[in-house]
């Protein structure tokens, strides 16, 4: 077994580890700005997983929308709300241990179930490119596409109404 196959086989586990540690960081660190940075890295890791799964278009969308737009919104919210000096405020509540137990229980149950299921796997893995997604979006899925556009517009207007000051 040479290096290339090793990389191809186990490279994704490094991405997994990177993503999970960034995600853990983003839910545990005290400084909320560092949490947002951790989320940015976790999202990039997820985009990496998408690239490995040959969903290039979605990986690009993930980076463009999540890292480029949603993260900016989050960071803006951090900046608009928290005072610059109060990085040391205790940012987690008293339910840390119950929450941990609950999460681990969820992981245990789901993993046990996943082990039992037999998936209906394809013989050959397929990957589809952006052109195909575009055709599908304009063809059979045009209604959900339109609805999501309307929802987006409504949400934008609603956001402006909520965030506008009352003056």
């Amino acid at each position, binding site marked *: 077994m040479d290096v290339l196959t090793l990389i191809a086989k186990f490279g994704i586990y490094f991405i997994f580890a990177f993503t999970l540690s960034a995600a853990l960081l983003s839910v545990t660190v005290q400084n909320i700005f560092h949490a947002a940075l951790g989320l940015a890295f976790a999202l990039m890791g997820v985009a990496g997983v998408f690239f490995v799964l040959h969903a290039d278009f979605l990986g690009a969308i993930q980076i463009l929308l*999540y890292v480029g737009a949603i993260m900016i919104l989050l960071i803006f919210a951090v900046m608009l709300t928290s005072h610059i000096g109060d990085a040391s405020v205790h940012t987690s509540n008293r339910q840390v241990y119950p929450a941990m137990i609950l999460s681990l229980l969820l992981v245990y149950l789901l993993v046990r179930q996943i082990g039992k299921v037999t998936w209906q796997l*394809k013989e050959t893995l397929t990957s589809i490119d952006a052109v195909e997604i575009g055709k599908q979006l304009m063809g059979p899925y045009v209604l959900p596409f339109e609805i999501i556009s309307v929802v987006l517009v409504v949400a934008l207007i609603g956001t402006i109404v909520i965030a506008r000051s009352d003056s």
Partner: protein
Amino acid sequence: MIPLNHIVVFAVLLFAIGLFGTLTRRHVVGILISIELMINAANINFIAFSRYTKASPEVGQIFAVFIVVLAAIAAAVGLAIVVAIYRNQKTIYTDEIDILKW
């Protein structure tokens, strides 16, 4: 290629981390961050199943795109609410926002 189960387990772990964050964070923005993690875990499942299983290959990707858009909407509206709350209450710690009316 790695087995499908590993990817799904990874998604479960990411979801559990998100859940843990949602339950423990006091900071509203922290909760939003955790929710984004959970949404991403769901998205990974969509992509993985669209690549591995016999379901139609486009559906997973198309709905993953929809989910990303919805996540963006959720973030935008959520953060607008955060800013509005902060303007009125001068705090964004969930345990301090405890009145129903102001």
